[in-house]
């Protein structure tokens, strides 16, 4: 098809489409939309990824605060005060408590080591850890290069 015919076709179709009036929205659309506006709960059913950024940040902060509150309050509150709630939260918080205990034990061990061996122990530990990391990274790089190396081309 030459350019004149293409142009003619474009004009033809453009004329047809430009004449189209707006389609009528379905009869119940107005009522349905107004109802949706009056029900804020329906808005919250949107996926978290579609929430506004401020909403997501607030939610994140609140969620972290709740988790931190549960962990910290676990040991602090009177056993009888929140006994009911504690019982309900116990399964969920058990894992966090284990993690917390492990962290506390490690911190305690570190404090004891520092107390007995002096502050010089810390730089020595850090240096040892850095050395181990360097050795691992070096070995990893060598092995990766060996694995990905292409056979050398030799002239025939």
């Amino acid at each position, binding site marked *: 098809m030459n350019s004149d015919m*293409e142009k*003619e*076709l*474009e*004009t*033809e*179709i*453009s*004329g*047809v*489409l*430009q*004449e*189209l*009036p*707006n*389609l*009528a*929205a*379905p009869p119940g*659309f*107005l009522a*349905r*939309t*107004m109802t*949706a*506006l*009056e029900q804020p709960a329906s*808005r919250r059913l949107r996926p978290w990824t579609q929430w506004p950024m401020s909403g997501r940040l607030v939610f994140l902060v609140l969620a972290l605060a709740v988790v931190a509150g549960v962990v910290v309050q676990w040991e602090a509150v009177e056993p009888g005060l929140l006994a009911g709630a504690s019982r309900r939260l116990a399964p969920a918080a058990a894992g966090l408590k284990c993690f917390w205990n492990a962290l506390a034990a490690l911190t305690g061990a570190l404090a004891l080591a520092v107390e007995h061996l002096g502050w010089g122990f810390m730089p020595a530990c850090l240096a040892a850890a850095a050395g181990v990391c360097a050795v691992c990274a070096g070995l990893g790089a060598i092995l990766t290069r060996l694995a990905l190396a292409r056979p050398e081309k030799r002239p025939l």
Partner: protein
Amino acid sequence: MTDAKPFEAFLKNHQNMVFSTAMRLVANTAEAEDISQEVFLRAFERFGELADDPRAGGWLKTVAINLSLNHLSRYRARWSFFSELFHRGPAGEQAQIEFAAPDDVEESVAAAERSRMVEQALRQLPPAQRVPLVLFHLEGMKYEEIAAKLGVSLGKVKTSIFRARAALRRKLGPRLRHDGRPGA
């Protein structure tokens, strides 16, 4: 909190335009209705700015286009959306839409009926052709803008629009007059 009454009037004024925009892109009434509702829910959140803004219609149209394109790319396989798989060729084309005999048209077929036929023909186009065609002819976008919006090459956009026009002419039949009025 935005007052519902003024917003209801705003919604009444623009609902057909928003629904038409979505409907011509997604070609499905239920999906177009959902998209239109989402457009107005977003407009409600910004109604303070939009209420007296003469560009509110443009804002609504832009959001409707974006949501429709998001919907198409999210819920339909992208590979088929812009591939030629939808292009069934002459053998697979839908049957040509029957217009009334030329002599009867001017007397019996109203403009509304003609529009309905064109809308139907438009809906029968594969999305890969319909979407660029609608963006070009109805939304007034340039080829380059369409290519950027759809994430395809400029050549692909031009080819798709050309094929869409040719298919539309085939569907509307040889009675499509040169002044762009079908059925004369």
